[in-house]
Every structure is written in C-alpha cells, then in structure tokens.
C-alpha cells in the first residue's frame, strides 16, 4: 500500500468565469472521490498560456486544457509542450465546438481525451478524477 499520494490537477482556461467555475467543480469532485483515501490534492489554475508553461509541474496527474486560447494558441500547442516534459500526465482537451478535425488533431498530438463543454462535461471529469484517484490509491 502506498503512502500519502499527491493528486495534482492543473486547469488552463482563458475565460476567468469558466476557469473559476471549473476549478470549483473539480475541487468538489476531488473531495467527493478521495474520501477514505490517503491522498493530498493540489489544484493549479491558469488563464494564461505562458504562465501555465512556466509553472507546469512534471508530476501533474491531470491537465484540463481549453482548446481555444488567446494569441492564436490552441490546445494542440499545449499538448505538444506538455508531452515534451511529461508522458504520464492525462491531458484532457475541453472544447465547446465539436470540430472533429481539431479534436482528432489533439488526439494525434497526444491528448488523452476530449471533453465537450455541455451537460455531460462534469460527469466525464468526475469519471476521470475517480479513475486517477483509484490509480493513486493502489
């Protein structure tokens, strides 16, 4: 049995409102799933790509990344940067447009999954977090 594990989640979302909302929900989901498990939780959220890059922790377990970012950057750029330093991080692209081509490209570059901004967004996030916590708790 492992000792005290740390669950690190990072959010990159340029919209402040959605960033705050998403962070709140992720916190609630983690608290729900880590009950009874010896797991600490660290959540970082950024609304700026360069700030995200400068502060990205290689040990991050899950990164939720908005597809469309400021200054012509997109989730694809973020995935490439994350994959340069971490292969194990679960990178989830959050998108409000079902542009199959872009999403396909994200997967091609190494995204672990796509979550669309709709009614099922948080259900999918919940599932991802639950799975990650299970993995850490083994």
């Amino acid at each position: 049995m492992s000792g005290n594990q740390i669950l690190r989640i990072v959010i990159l979302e340029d919209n402040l409102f959605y960033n705050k909302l998403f962070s709140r929900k992720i916190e609630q989901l983690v608290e729900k799933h880590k009950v009874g498990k010896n797991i600490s939780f660290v959540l970082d959220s950024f609304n700026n790509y360069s700030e995200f890059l400068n502060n990205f922790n290689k040990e991050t377990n899950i990164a939720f990344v908005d597809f469309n970012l400021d200054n012509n950057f997109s989730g694809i750029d973020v995935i490439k940067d994350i994959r340069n330093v971490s292969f194990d991080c679960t990178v989830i692209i959050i998108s409000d447009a079902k542009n199959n081509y872009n999403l396909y490209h994200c997967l091609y570059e190494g995204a672990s999954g796509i979550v669309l901004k709709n009614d099922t967004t948080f259900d999918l996030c919940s599932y991802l977090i639950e799975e990650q916590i299970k993995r850490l708790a083994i």
Partner: protein
Amino acid sequence: MKFFKYEISSIILLTGIFFLVILTGVYVNRKISTTIEKVNVQAAPDNRLLLMKSLTGTLTEAENNLYSFNLTKDKTYLDDFYKTIRNSEKKLTRLKNMSADDPVFKSQVDTFEFFVFEKFKILDSLMLTQNQYRVTDALNVVQEKIDEVSALERAQNEPKAKGLSIFKRKKNEANLKITYFKKELEEIRKMESYKEITNNSIELGLIQYDRFIMKKIAQMLDRLEKRERMAIARKSEAAGQAAKDAKKITIIFSVFCSLLLLLIFYTIIRYIRKNNEYKKILKKAKQESDELAEAKVRFLSNMSHELRTPLNSIIGFTDLLTNPESKLTNEQRREKLGIIQKSAQLLLKLLNNILDHTKLQANKIEFEKEDFDIILAVREVFQILEESARVKNNQLILHVSTESLHVKGDSFKLKQILLNLVGNAIKFTENGTIEINLKFESNEAGRYLVHMSVNDTGIGIASDRLEHIFNEFEQESMHTSKEYGGTGLGLNITKTLIELQGGSIRVNSKKGQGTTFFFSIPYEHGKVAQAPVETPVPAAIDITQLVKGRKIMVVDDEPFNRKLLSSLLNPYDVELYEASNGEEAFELARNIQFDLILMDIRMPKMNGIDATKQIKALQPIPVPIVALSAGSLEDDKNTAFIFDAVLPKPFKNDHLLAVISKLLDKNTSTLDLNLVLAEDDDDENDKHYDLANLRVMAQGSQEFFDEMLELFIRTSKEGISQMQGYLDEKDFYAMSQIAHRIAAPCKHLEANKMYALIKLIENYKKNAFTYEEMKFVLEKLKSHSKQLIANLEAEKFEEKSI
C-alpha cells in the same frame, strides 16, 4: 503500455501478498510456540513439593527400620536407619537450594527441616528407651550377686571339713544363700520395674511428641499441596487462555491466508482475462490491419491503372495538339480537347473520392443544417444523370410520394449519396431501367424519416460479395474494377455519409438480375426555404466591373498554378501581381495596397499562414486573403482561423470568381438576421438567464455565487468593450476571438440569447458578415447584455438584502 502496467502492478501485488503471508506465518508460529512453552511450564509438577513428600516417606522408612531393629535386633535395620538419616540430610540440602529464590517457601523449608530433625531425635530417643539389653543387664546383676556369694562361701569353708556338724552347717548355709538370692532378686525386680516405668513414661512422651511432629508435617504438606493445587488451577486457566489465544490466532491466520489466496486467485483470473482480451484485440487488429493492407494494395494497383488511363489520354492528346507537325482540323482539335477535358474531369472525380475518404477517415466531414426541399434536391440529381442514363440506353424513373418535403439537413451530402448510387446503377446497367423511389414518414422524435431506394436491372452482385460491398477499397470483383473502373471507395463513402447522419443503408442484389440499394436518413422538419439560397451569385454581379483595375496578388510556388490563375483573371483586366513564396508576397504587400490576395499554403521560405499573419498586421483594414488549399489536414487546421475564405484545389473558374466577387463586393452578402434575432424585442421582465446551475455549484456558498456573478458581469463588459474597439478597427478576427472567449459562461448561465448573439460574431466568417452587419449584431449584443447585466445586479442586490 496499459497491459505492461497491469503486469507490473500484478507482480508487485503478488510479491506483497507473498511477503505478507511469510510475515504473518512467522508471527503466528512465534505466538503458538510461546503458548506451548507456557503450557509446558504450567503443566510441570512442583519438584520441591515432591521432594518434601519424598522426605516424609523417608521419615516413615526410618521409623520402620527403627522398629524392625528393635524387634529383631538385626543390625542391618540399624544401618538402614542411619542411612535414611543421611539421605534425609541430603534431600533437605537440595530442598534448600531449590527454594533459595522463593523466600516464602524457604521459610516453610526451614520449618520442615526443624520437624525432620525433631523426628529423628525422637526416633533416636525411642531407640534408646527401647533398649533390648535391659534383661541381660538384670541377669548380669544377678550373676554378679551369685558370684559374690560363692566367693564368700569358699573363704569360710576352707579350715572346716568333718562329720555331722559339717552336714548341719551345710544346711544352714544353703538356707542363708536362698534368702539372700531372693532378697537380691527382689531388689533387681524393683529396680527393673522402676526403670520400666520410667522408660515407658519417656517412650510415651516421645511417641506423643512424634505424633505432634508428624501432624505438623502433614499439615504443612497439606498447606503446600493446597497451595500447589491452587497454583495448578491458575496455571491451567492461563494455559487454557493461551490455548484459546493460539486457536484464535490460528483461525485469523487461516482466514487471512484464505482471503489472500482468494485475492491472488482473483488477480490471476483477472490477469488471464485481461490477457485474453488483449490477445483478442490484438488478433482482431492484426486481422483488420492485414485486410486493410491487402485492400490498399488492391486499391493502389487499381488506382494506378485508373489514374494512368485518363493521364495517358491527356498526355497523348496534348502531345498531338502541341505538335506543330500534326495537321488536325479545328473539328478534330475540338474533339481531342473534349477528350482531354473529360479525362481531367475523371481524374478530378477520382481524386475527390480519395479526398472525401480521407476526410471521413479523419472525422473531418461536417454536416450543414440548412432548410431545403428534399424533392427538389432529388430532382436535381435526376436531371444531372438523365443524360448519362440515356447514353447507355437506360430508362431513369423517379417515384416520389409528395411534391415537396421541407427538411433541415445537408442537401449537398444527400445529392452526393444519390449521385453515387444512381451513378453506379447507370454504370452497371445497359438497356435497362433505373428507378429512384422516395417515401417518408414522421417518427416519434418529431422528425421525418426519409426512405429512398435506387433500383437497377444491371449486372448485379454475387451473393458472397454482398457483405463486402461497403468496405473501403472493395469492388464486386477485380473484373468489375477493370471493366467499369472506379476507386472502390464510393459505396464506403456513401455508407459513412448516411450513418454519420443517423441513417442506415442495405443492399439486395442477384447476379445478372440487378441491384437495389435502400437507405433511410432522419431529418428535422424544415421551413420553406427562403427564396434562392443566398450565396454569392456571380451571375447577378457584373464581375468584369467588380474586378476591373483591382490589385490582386497570386502567391504560389508552383509556376503552373500562378499561370493558371493569371490566365483566369487576365481577361477581367485586373492589375495582377505574382509572388513565388511568402517572403516575396510580404515584401510586395508592404509597398502595394492590394485589394485581394490569393495565397497558397505550402511554400518554401515562408508559408502562406505566416505570410498572411504578417500581411494582415501591416494595414489597419486587413486585405482579404483567400487560401488556396490542397485539402490536406494540416492546411485546413490553420485556414479556419486566419483566412477570409478557403478555395480548395483544384477549383473551378466560377467558384473562384464567386469567392473573389464576395470578398470584393461589400454589398453582395445579405444576412437574414430576423431569423437569428427572432425574439428581437427584449421584454424587461424577461430575465433571459437561469442561475440554478450556478447555485448548485456554489453548494450554499454565497461568497462563491457573488464572486462568479461579478466575474461574469466584468468579463462580459470587458469583452463587449474590446469587441467595440476591434469593430472600429474592422478587426473581425480579433472580435471573433473575444466572442469565443466570453461565449461559454453565457451558456452556463443559460443566457441563451446573449450566447446566440456572441456566436454570431464568433462565426462572422461563416455568416459572411459585412462591417454593418457586425456593427448591427454588436449593437444588439450591447443592448441585450446591458439589460441582462442590470437584471443580474438587481438579483444580486436582492439576495444580499435577504
């Protein structure tokens, strides 16, 4: 990777379980050994008590020896008596040594020693009092007296020795002696009686004392035995408890081991299952990969033939036409050019099929949602193919159950499906009939389910090939591809297009008798289409006037493409510039104010995307730039954001002119905003949002709730203000970016109208908005958001008041 991780975790788990079992086993073994040791110690008799009892027995033995000696006068008994005394002394010494660590018992041993010695003293005294030589002593005294008397008589009788007197004298002397002996004997009897009485008294006293001592010894032994019994009872109880503990530990250990075994069993079974699943997946993937590889090989060999055939005719006839020595009449030249044109169209069709297939593979195909009359679309296809059918002496018949059916969906994709199916039917039928049937029904979901069938009386498909007919790169047979041509992708594309729209397709066929394809597609109910779909209509615009004198730059690294575009545009009297890469284009754009740029994407030195970014940054009102995309994935990704329009290669003249007209003529685009802004007049009482989701998320935290509302209000205000700034600069792209950023929160607060307005701005390119239209939508957005924000702030204030 996942499998490898699972294997490692299983090994770690099993190793962990193995060590756990060993550790638990060692622990249980130690515990049980300790328990057994305790039981052994507790079950052992008390040696000290045994020794004391043995000593008591020795005392009895000594007593018996003494009495035996007194009775028999056999000295052996006396020797044994003294031997028992020595034994007793030794045993006492041992007993003392054994009790050295137990002060309580040591005091008992000291008392016991005292009793033992007292006992021996008594026995010794008894032996003396019961002296069996007393009679002999008494007889000896009598013998001494007799001897004394005899001596005295001999001394008196020595001078006298004659007659009667002697006889008389002798008689008197005898009487005297008897009297004397009697007297002496009486004295001895008296003495002996006295001694007897004395001895008896002493013996009696000793016997009483002996009884007292023995009683004390017995009491002591009783006490010690009682104490021993109690100790044994306590030890038995402790031993019982220890045994119970051992039993409990054994049970726990057994249960624990059983659970671990179950866990191991479960892990192994799971591992085996996973392993089997992976094997199956791998096997299936390999099989699919082999099949695909085989099909692709077939496809390539087929395609090379398909491409070579029209290319051969193009090259051959081009050579013929460009040869100055060929003496062809104008009629012959026209005929050859016609063949070249048809060959080129065939090539284009083949390439389009491959491109469509690639797009479907990459899930890149998107379906439009437009209102259209499905009957009209089918009739269009009918008209297109009527001539082809007639050429092969086929009768093309259309059966429809209604005159018009307005649906919402992608008309172009429907036409593509029909063109493919009916085109195939014509291809494989000669002197026969091809029927197109259309029926529809309204399903429970409030949609039309349109059923269509394409029936021909052609060559048909062998039954064993039917199930493969929709596979990619598959044709009915090699013979089919050789005789009729084609890529083998058409039906696969058709099936995918139908299924992606939620429909299904099936086929019935008999070799030699014909084929029928049935397909159904669900469509939403549509509105009666607004008079002709408003796309740029070149015919309605005087293109010559529109482009005359305009500065247009063609940027392409391929001289042939530049030449082609130049030759297309030159007749319109445009001021044409050419650049062979992005760098050249940028240099030209710095010095010349262009009206339009046609930009290739993949070019050496600087690609079209970088060049476009730099050129757009040069001027306050960016020049419209059209991407000339070869349709590759990488190109499409970027063109979606940066360019004003995308023209896929190869393009047709009228398509190119339509795009140019659209971009150059600011008044060509019309937008039916009434459709989007149907609920134009905001009712002040209507809030146009719903905070329920936010409340759920806040979970009672008023602070979070307030913060989120403030954030929404602030970012919306900022975003709209920034959009206003960019509108003044006519930077629609920047407006679109901001619109994208602020749209999601509106959706979350169910501010649907605000969301729709923002989305209009975000999709300005798709909507082909002019400056006035953007301004109009932004004004609407500002007005609507002002009301919405006011309502939100009022609600926030009310909550705080409560």
